[in-house]
């Protein structure tokens, strides 16, 4: 809504009935404008003297009701949205209501970079149905995924540990919605909210465990096991068996050549464990894929326990 509209509405609200009468008298007698007003077919008149739009009471009420309905729907949507992120969902109602005005709903596309390694953190993100990969640089060209965040967590954990700079590159792998909060506001809220602190310290431990497990997995397990494990982990966080991930994405995340992903995913596909539709991978047989994965994979509920 433009600022012009706001000004017009406020000014219209101040118009007195005598002002409206004066305005109507300026319209040509017997003209089509007057006839339409008498028939109740007009919503607004332009007052050229004051350069204002005068909205008629009936129309003004309808506009106000519509605006209230839209605002109420938006409030309701924002109120319900945090329930879709596990960290926010577990907060006591009072604490979560205090955070609400600071949370902004954003749509994230695949490839969006939320945090750059070595750069200050400007926002924290609470994913709802998107999946974010935390990439650690290994040299100037390459990076490898050392963490995964979905509706189970938050991107921006260094702030919890009083570090304002990201150590990883946070890249959106599965597009979707998230709630974000400016870093300064988050720091204030974190200091005030005891339950938020507890949740996030615990989550920081979960992330540390996840990074350790990924490091151990990289050094110990065959690529097919690792690939199956990552597909399951991403699938859990995307809340959908349709991963909308390409082989190229997976090669980047796992820091392997694309041909390795092609060969290995071909093997998983031939066993009916995954599908590949127009370059996008999906999980067809979850149990089978779990059997193919290394023991580093744990379903979200279990992995969530520090």
């Amino acid at each position, binding site marked *: *809504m*433009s600022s*012009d*509209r706001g000004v*017009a*509405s406020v000014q219209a609200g101040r118009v007195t009935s005598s002002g409206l009468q004066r305005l109507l008298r300026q*319209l040509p007698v017997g003209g*089509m*404008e007057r*006839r*339409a*007003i008498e*028939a*109740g*077919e*007009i*919503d*607004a*008149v*332009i007052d*050229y003297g004051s*350069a*204002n*739009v005068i*909205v008629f009471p*009936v*129309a003004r009420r*309808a*506009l106000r009701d*519509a605006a209230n309905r839209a605002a109420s729907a938006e409030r309701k949507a924002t109120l319900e949205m945090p329930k879709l992120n596990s960290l926010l969902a577990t907060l006591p109602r009072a604490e979560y209501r205090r955070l609400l005005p600071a949370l902004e709903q954003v749509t994230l596309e695949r490839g969006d970079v939320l945090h750059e390694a070595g750069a200050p953190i400007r926002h924290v993100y609470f994913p709802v149905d998107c999946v974010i990969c935390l990439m650690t640089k290994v040299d100037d060209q390459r990076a490898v995924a050392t963490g995964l965040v979905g509706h189970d967590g938050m991107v921006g954990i260094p702030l919890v540990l009083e570090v304002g700079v990201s150590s990883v590159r946070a890249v959106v792998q599965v597009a979707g919605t998230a709630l974000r909060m400016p870093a300064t506001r988050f720091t204030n809220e974190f200091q005030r909210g005891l339950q938020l602190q507890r949740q996030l310290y615990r989550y920081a431990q979960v992330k540390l465990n996840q990074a350790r497990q990924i490091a151990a997995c990289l050094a110990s397990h065959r690529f097919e096991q690792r690939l199956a494990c990552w597909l399951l982990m991403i699938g859990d966080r995307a809340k959908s068996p349709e991963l909308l991930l390409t082989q190229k994405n997976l090669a980047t995340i796992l820091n392997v050549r694309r041909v390795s992903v092609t060969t290995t995913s071909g093997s998983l596909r031939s066993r009916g464990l995954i599908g590949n539709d127009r370059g996008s991978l999906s999980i067809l047989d979850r149990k089978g894929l779990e059997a193919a994965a290394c023991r580093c994979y744990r379903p979200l509920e279990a992995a969530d326990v520090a």
Partner: protein
Amino acid sequence: MTRRTPPSASPARPTTVVVLRLYIAGGAPNSMQAIANLEAICAEHLKGGHRLEVVDILDNPRRAMAEGVLVTPSLTKLSPLPAAQVVGNLSDKKRVLLALGLEPHVQ
């Protein structure tokens, strides 16, 4: 709003594109009705041979003033000439057709 039954005989088809501009006041009731009525008339009588621009005067009051609009809803036919104007919620279909130069057959 009184919707009239369309005439059984179709009026003359336009040979040129009719350019229309409708000024409205946001989602106010008459403005919404005017859009619906005009869309129905255009679909029936112009069959896509028109261009319609909807201008919200709450978003853009200065433009409406620059173009001499007094009230909304207000429909202006810009082309083909002569220009014509109808105000109100456009429920009087005959008046709209007259303004568009698509006068229905006189019964």
